[in-house]
């Protein structure tokens, strides 16, 4: 593993994303939305900062997943990834370079959520840690979709579907008991639960088991996609 190459990919990705409005908007949309909603929507009996955990869950279910899938599949389609791999860059170096960039941007987004939610002290670190776990799982799903897809179009169509499941089920679960039962088994459902119960007892057995099981499935799916299709 070569740090120089990882940093080169990371810096390339910063410049490339700044010029790619489609990707950029996905990073900015929910943090902007939460600021606007939190400031403008005040209803009777609505908990304080009600939108923060809700949009934070949707953000981590959407941004890392769709962006990782889009970036990876675009590089495959346009042959830039092949050129990188033929220039001494190892698949792991590429994935870490792009992945760390997405994690950083998403954590900046998480910072916006934290400021909006007025988290402080231990709560702030707890919030950021939960977000980080969710971002990493979402990122791996995106990498699996990107590795599996032959081009950007197919990656986008699959990732929109997957993202919808992980982003919206925890939200719908708030209003529907049957969906809530399904949401319990999803990593995004458990992330939403943790975000809503911050400062409480912390991680219980069910949450830990679901997150670990989901994480293991995602790693397995990525490995399958990588073994079957490689990165090019």
């Amino acid at each position, binding site marked *: 593993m070569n740090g*120089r*190459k990882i*940093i*080169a*990919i990371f*810096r*390339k990705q910063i*410049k*490339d994303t700044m*010029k*790619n409005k489609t990707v950029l908007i996905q990073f900015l949309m929910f943090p902007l939305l939460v600021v606007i909603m939190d400031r403008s929507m005040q209803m009777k009996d609505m908990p304080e900062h009600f939108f923060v955990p809700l949009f934070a869950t949707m953000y981590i279910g959407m941004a890392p997943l769709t962006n990782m899938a889009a970036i990876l599949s675009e590089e495959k389609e*346009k*042959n*830039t990834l*092949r*050129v*990188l791999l*033929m*220039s*001494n*860059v190892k698949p792991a170096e590429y994935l870490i370079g792009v992945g760390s960039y997405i994690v950083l941007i998403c954590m900046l987004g998480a910072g916006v959520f934290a400021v909006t939610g007025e988290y402080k002290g231990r709560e702030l670190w707890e919030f950021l840690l939960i977000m980080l776990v969710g971002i990493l799982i979402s990122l791996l799903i995106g990498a699996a979709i990107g590795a599996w897809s032959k081009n950007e179009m197919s990656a986008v169509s699959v990732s929109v579907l997957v993202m919808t499941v992980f982003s919206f089920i925890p939200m719908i679960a708030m209003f529907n008991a049957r969906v809530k039962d399904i949401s319990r088994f999803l990593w995004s459902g458990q992330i939403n639960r943790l975000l809503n119960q911050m400062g409480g007892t912390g991680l219980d057995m069910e949450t830990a088991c679901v997150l670990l099981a989901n994480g293991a499935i995602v790693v397995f799916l990525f490995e399958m996609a990588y073994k079957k299709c490689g990165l090019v």
Partner: protein
Amino acid sequence: MNSRISVKNIVREFDGNRVLKGIGIQIGEGEIFGMLGPSGAGKTTLIKILTGQLVQTEGEAELLGTDTRRLTDREYSRIGMMLDNTGVYERLSCYDNLLLFARIYGLTAEKPEEALKRVGLWEAKNRPVQKLSKGMKQRLVLARAMMNEPTVLFLDEPTSGLDPANAMEIHKLIKKQREKGTTVFLTTHNMEEAAKLCDHVALLCEGSIVEYGNPKEICRRYNHQNKIRLSLKDGRQVLLENNHDGAEKIYDCLKDGLVEAIHSTEPDLETVFMELTGRSFE
């Protein structure tokens, strides 16, 4: 002469279909080698095997003395590649595209600037690649391939789709690189390009090499007519024997000021290919 590329009896199958059927070549230092053949002949497959992107079904291939199935960072840092599909970051500028690879190779920050100047793209350094013409894009890819001063340069159809002026620019750059001792492996279906550039060529048809050698020697070898053709100023073409009688006739014509041009009946590489395979290059 040390072989920088050595290929022995390479066979490659795709789903039981033999795309390469026992290819063998040796390419030395500072040599421009052309693998010529129509589309689907197996040229790109061979490049992929030589650069470790594909594994052969049978046979041995070595690049810089290393089995191509076991190429490491050491070999990859000594090769440059210009693939048929350009693989450049369209949204990034020319400079940023090269800067990325300079960083990957651990080259100095001056290298992208030098490379852009070498291919005449310095003026366009800040222009996004998506706004470049096809010729400029090709030059950018060539700059990227040459930036690490490669020992072996792979060029897959380097002038495909370019106008003659741009193609000539690329040819000049390739020749300059050869002067530095770089071995150039190029694939093309442009016979004229191969005859101009290459020290040796192999004519590839349906996965087999049907002829190998210096382009001029190959053409001489297939000069079955062995005649001299005169183009006269009045528009007539005269075919003369390549012997004493023919020489006298040429002398007479020259003396009378009738001659526009003198040609040999040597075939070009395309004609040789057609004679050997019964197929054209298109």
